[in-house]
């Protein structure tokens, strides 16, 4: 997969080809003792320096588990997570803590992710202090960072409860970015915010990325935001990557029936809907079936097909655009029917 995707990053990516920044290989994670089941079932992907990779899927697909596993908040059962060649999955104790400055995370909940007893200044300064930055430099970096996220001056001495949701999320971003991490995992960073603030946070993230040359892994259930924000998107279903492509490609030409259904199901303002909504049968399963395609039971294409229920499709390059991969026996068969465009005068 790595080979196929190389060079497939969008134009914004600095063109340092070669080894990807983050190599995830066959990541597995199970929950629950004797009756455990895989929440992540052999997830592999690469992230290149400077790119933004989106991970989309519905609840239970494993995207948050993936985020937490990557930043080592949860242990990993199996697999490798290489950041510039260092396997994060096997690090422990002080070594892990030292490496942490290289991978940071922004959490979903801007109300919970800041210690309510620390001022904005302290919050943003803490990571630097932990990693041994001298005090004078710390002060400078913090001031710079806070200015960057638009919370300079008076804000530094406020406590999180005195901030609005958007402001808090900006503090959280400042705290993560002040370390200049190699990669930043954004776990649903806008889903708890009001619409009018979401745009502000996304714009800020994008500006900082350009400014500091950052790499993002963007976890979201919001397809529109993913399309808008990401260079490349992975679709997760029940712990497996079912499709990955550049966002233009994926949103224009989803090959996996699930991706297609997902895209068509998202509410689209009247007048922008271009395809018939595909309404899936049933609801997402809690756990994967033993055999076959995890999506088979809900799939309009594979529901009645023997092969879908007996053999698990693997992620393979699809025809067409380079780097478009899909795990389906019948890729592209389900394409939402184009809708007659609503009359707009």
């Amino acid at each position: 997969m790595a080979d196929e995707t190389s060079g497939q990053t969008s134009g914004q990516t600095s063109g340092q080809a070669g080894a990807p920044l983050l190599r995830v290989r066959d990541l597995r994670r199970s929950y629950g003792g004797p009756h455990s089941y895989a929440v992540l079932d052999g997830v592999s992907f690469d992230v290149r320096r400077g790119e933004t990779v989106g991970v989309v899927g519905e609840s239970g697909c494993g995207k948050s588990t993936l985020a937490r596993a990557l930043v080592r908040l949860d242990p990993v059962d199996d697999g490798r997570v290489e950041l510039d060649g260092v396997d994060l999955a096997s690090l422990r104790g002080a070594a892990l803590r030292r490496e942490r400055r290289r991978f940071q995370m922004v959490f979903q909940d801007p109300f919970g992710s800041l210690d309510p007893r620390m001022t904005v200044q302290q919050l943003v300064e803490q990571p630097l202090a932990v990693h041994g930055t001298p005090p004078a430099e710390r002060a400078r970096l913090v001031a710079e960072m806070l200015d960057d996220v638009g919370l300079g001056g008076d804000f530094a001495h406020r406590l999180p409860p005195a901030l609005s949701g958007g402001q808090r999320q900006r503090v959280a971003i400042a705290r993560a970015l002040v370390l200049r991490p190699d990669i930043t995992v954004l776990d649903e960073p806008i889903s708890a915010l009001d619409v009018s603030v979401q745009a502000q946070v996304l714009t800020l993230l994008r500006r900082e990325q350009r400014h500091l040359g950052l790499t993002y892994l963007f976890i979201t259930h919001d397809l529109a935001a993913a399309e808008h924000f990401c260079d490349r998107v992975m679709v997760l279903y029940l712990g497996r990557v079912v499709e990955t492509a550049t966002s233009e490609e994926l949103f224009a030409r989803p090959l996996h029936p699930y991706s297609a259904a997902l895209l068509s199901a998202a509410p689209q303002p009247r007048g922008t809907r271009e395809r018939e909504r595909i309404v899936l049968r049933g609801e997402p399963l809690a756990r994967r079936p033993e055999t076959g395609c995890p999506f088979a039971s809900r799939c309009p294409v594979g529901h009645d097909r023997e092969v879908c229920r007996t053999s698990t499709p693997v992620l393979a390059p699809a025809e067409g655009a380079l780097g478009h991969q899909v795990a389906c026996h019948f890729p592209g068969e389900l394409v939402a029917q184009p809708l007659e465009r609503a009359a707009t005068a």
Partner: protein
Amino acid sequence: MTITTTTAGARPRRAPALGGALKRAATGLLGVLMTLLLASVVSFVVLRAVPGDPARLIVGPLATPDVLAGVRAQLGLDDPLWLQYLRYVRDFATLQWGYSYSNGADVTAVMAARLPATLELALWAFLFAVVGAVVVATLASFRGGAFATVAKVVSLVGLGTPQFWVALVLILVLGSSGLGVLPGPSGRLTSFLEPPAHVTGLYTVDGLLAGQPIVFSDALAHLALPAISLAIIPGAFLTRLLTANQNDVARSPFVTVVRSKGVSRWAAHRRHVLHNALLPSVSSAGLVLASLITGSVLVESVFNWPGIGQVLVQGIQRQDFAVVQAFVLLSAVLYVAANTVADIAVALLDPRLRVRGGSK
């Protein structure tokens, strides 16, 4: 866009029913065993650590050294501690709880003879507490305002009440030396009444069974003050719990949904809020029991109630450790049993925990 996508969705749903039940049972059993083990260690240590020689207590002060040594050997006090401990655990398990020298009888016999009195007291106290708490808490939660304030004050004061003192005040105010409404601390029955034929050992129940309304009413009158004293703390506790539970439940969206069907506020409260609020409070049975046990220790001696609490106090005063350790261990066992029963009850009553096969 505020779809809350937390890890909740990814969390394992309930494990298959049978396995889950087994696992829960296993964990529960482990907990029970742990608790009992520790309880036995504690009471064993108490027995051994207390100054004074059990053998000396049994034979009396005038025994000669040979006699003393003989009893020591007989009691196994010269054996290594672990052996004594094992023997002690075995004896407890086989209901040989030793000899209460202060009562001149086997502890088992003493406890068995005294238990009905305590049970009867605890039962009525429990009834008073539960009925009182449900009424007060429901009023407080449903009516709010002054009712809520009163319920709050009642529960706060109740929780801070020294039971033995309340007993004293009740005797002074309501007892024969005060208003004379109820008999004071004079045991279970007026002495010229014969206890009813022994069926359950509970005079109120036996009185009814034997068709002796006078015995029933007299027993109940004697019960009233101690049972009220005993009911105050668990009652206050339950009032608090039930008020909080009902307030919580009343705020849940499903109540609004019920109201949106056109169900009146009281019907919604009674059918849905109260039901949901009562369920979790079942699991606090252990705490209620603990407070009844503690209460019986403190209240029985004030009311001269011939229950096991009084035996304990007397055992303490006479350093009769067989009684003390049996009581301590017994109460731990009861606590564990009550909690287990409560867990089972909740599991049976709460459909969310009910083990059902093949629901999905």
